[in-house]
């Protein structure tokens, strides 16, 4: 088997507050092959973004502790890099697309300057070469008037166009891995469809591996082959998209699916929701974290933690899977 583009082994993140330890990411392992897209889904506060930041090594702050048995990009471990070493990797081998392009882009530089800066940082050659690559990146996300866009400031573009320039910036060095953190959440339906289509196109073109973080299962279904479901910092289901939608095994995954409103000619029945809410990090239940909200709970769930067991490549961390 080939070396996966991204391989994460036993990644944990916790906050240290007073003498308390709050685990926000709990022993997560997964891998993505080149040219594949994997979705990471779950409710707000379940640790999706923390996972992304930990992979990129952006969590070296006091009070936060990251621990893993390896984060490999094309076989190279990036979790042990120094700050300088990491700088040469971010943007070139692994890049991120943020949720809010309005805040991720610098308002005082033009789009062209910002994309060019990423390219130059990684030894991209002279001014002309930089400009050429920058314009190519803008054209590759679909802009016909790349020169005009390059000369614009972020505030002159609409939300959807800004997100496209973020994608151009992430792909200008053709990285092996892109982490997209809720890239379409702030956009309306039609714009979202276009952004997803572009992202898919670039992924095919450069054989990029994408970790696509979203709380929207409908979007994940559209773009990803595999999907990981997270709840309270743990991976609770790992399967391919088709399977998740046709036969979710973890009760939480099934609950999430039933929350998605559907469009149909007939008036849909009243929407279902998962009872209760996410437990606070300071007060996580012993055993399976989902047990208090689960309708299939039994005694064992409240005492011991179910492991993510794989069966035909499909894993569910549940004692009584559906």
């Amino acid at each position, binding site marked *: 088997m080939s070396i996966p583009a991204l391989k994460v082994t036993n990644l944990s993140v916790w906050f240290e507050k007073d003498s308390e330890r709050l685990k926000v990411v709990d022993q997560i392992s997964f891998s993505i092959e080149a040219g594949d897209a994997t979705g990471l889904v779950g*409710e*707000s*506060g379940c640790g999706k973004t923390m996972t992304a930041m930990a992979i990129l090594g952006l969590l070296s702050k006091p009070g936060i502790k990251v621990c893993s048995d390896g984060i490999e990009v094309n076989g190279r471990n990036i979790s042990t890099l120094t700050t300088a070493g990491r700088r040469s990797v971010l943007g070139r081998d692994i890049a991120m697309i943020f949720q809010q392009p309005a805040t991720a882009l610098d308002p005082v530089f033009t789009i062209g300057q910002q994309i060019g800066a990423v390219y130059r940082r990684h030894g991209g050659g002279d001014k002309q070469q930089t400009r050429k690559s920058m314009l190519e990146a803008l054209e590759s996300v*679909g802009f*016909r008037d790349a020169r005009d866009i390059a000369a614009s400031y972020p505030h002159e573009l*609409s*939300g*959807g*166009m800004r997100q*496209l320039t973020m994608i151009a910036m992430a792909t200008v060095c053709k990285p092996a891995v892109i982490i997209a953190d809720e890239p379409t959440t702030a956009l*309306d*339906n*039609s*714009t979202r*469809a*276009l952004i*997803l*289509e*572009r992202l898919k*196109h670039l992924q095919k073109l450069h054989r990029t591996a994408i970790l696509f973080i979203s*709380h*929207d*299962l*409908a979007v994940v279904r*559209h773009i990803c082959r595999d999907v990981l479901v997270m709840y309270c910092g743990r991976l609770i289901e790992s399967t391919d998209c088709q399977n998740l939608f046709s036969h979710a095994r973890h009760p939480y995954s099934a*609950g*999430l699916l*039933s*929350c*998605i*409103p*559907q*469009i*149909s*000619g*007939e*008036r*849909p029945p*009243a*929407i*279902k*929701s*998962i009872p209760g*809410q*996410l437990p606070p990090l300071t007060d996580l239940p012993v055993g399976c974290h989902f047990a208090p909200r689960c309708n299939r709970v039994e005694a064992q769930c409240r005492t011991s933690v179910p492991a993510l067991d794989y069966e035909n490549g499909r894993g569910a961390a549940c004692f009584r899977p559906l």
Partner: protein
Amino acid sequence: MNTPTPAKPRTLLEIRDFSLSFRQSTQLAVDHVSLKMAAGRTLGLVGASGAGKSSIARAILRLVKPDAGEILFRGEDIYRMSAPDLKATRQRIQMVFQDPSVSLSPRRTVEQTLLEPLQHFAIGDTDEQQGRIREILRTVGLDDSTLHRYPNQFSSGQQQRIAIARALVTEPDLLIADEAVASLDVSIQAQILQLIQTLQTDFGISILFISHDLAVIRQIADDVAVMYQGQLLEQSTADKFFSEPAHPYSKTLLSFAKGNTPGRWSGDKWHLLRGQKSLGKRAKCVYAGFCGDKLDVCEEREPALHDIQFKNQHAAAPHCVKCHLYDGVKNDDH
């Protein structure tokens, strides 16, 4: 007034030929919009960002000054009301905003937030007010222990529940929900949609539900109105809209929402990103530049808003479409 025929329900709100522009712009943000809302029903207002949805919401609350037209609430123009009448009307129209972490005051406890509308409109004495806010909290699924806490101590779903409680505490007839579930997770969104649906059944209020998410609209709305670049292009019942949308733009919207993304990147989709800026000359159909079914007349004249309601149909809402394709279609033809 009651007639034995299944007549249309009472009209609660009527917007007549309403226009609105912003200071720097010559472009109308709301362009001669006419719209009717029946009492006790939910109208879903859809359209891309910048279509003028929120401007309509703000206009109904008289937060903006119109260029032309009128907005009738129970037959009275809210822009011609005296100050006391306006105050009384605002008690009957309440709003829930998109982001509860911004719309709730961070320096007020839940109790202060909920009491303020009651004090402002002088509803009940102190005991009555206290009883009322406790009752409304239970209605939205929170308990009394939340009263002395601040918004930042709640999750986004709970914050939106508080915002809804604040809106409902004056017992309004019309609730305007402007993207009220757009910033929430699917699971929380489902809970809030459930709550809004229950509240409507229990209280019989009318809801103007603004959203760009057609799946959410399908879930909650009885009627649908579609806006594009400030104009109302179609209004019909939700069942009709989702099975047979009439306007070409409605069809495009619906196909996008169902996930039928374009197979390849084509230039004619750019307008969806650009919003207002790409607009050319006026005095023609706003959608003409991008319409797949364009006729010659679309470039020449602005279409009228045709009523294509079937005569024998007992639907509560009108079915109107602003498109030249329906020029020949008259009410009597059916």
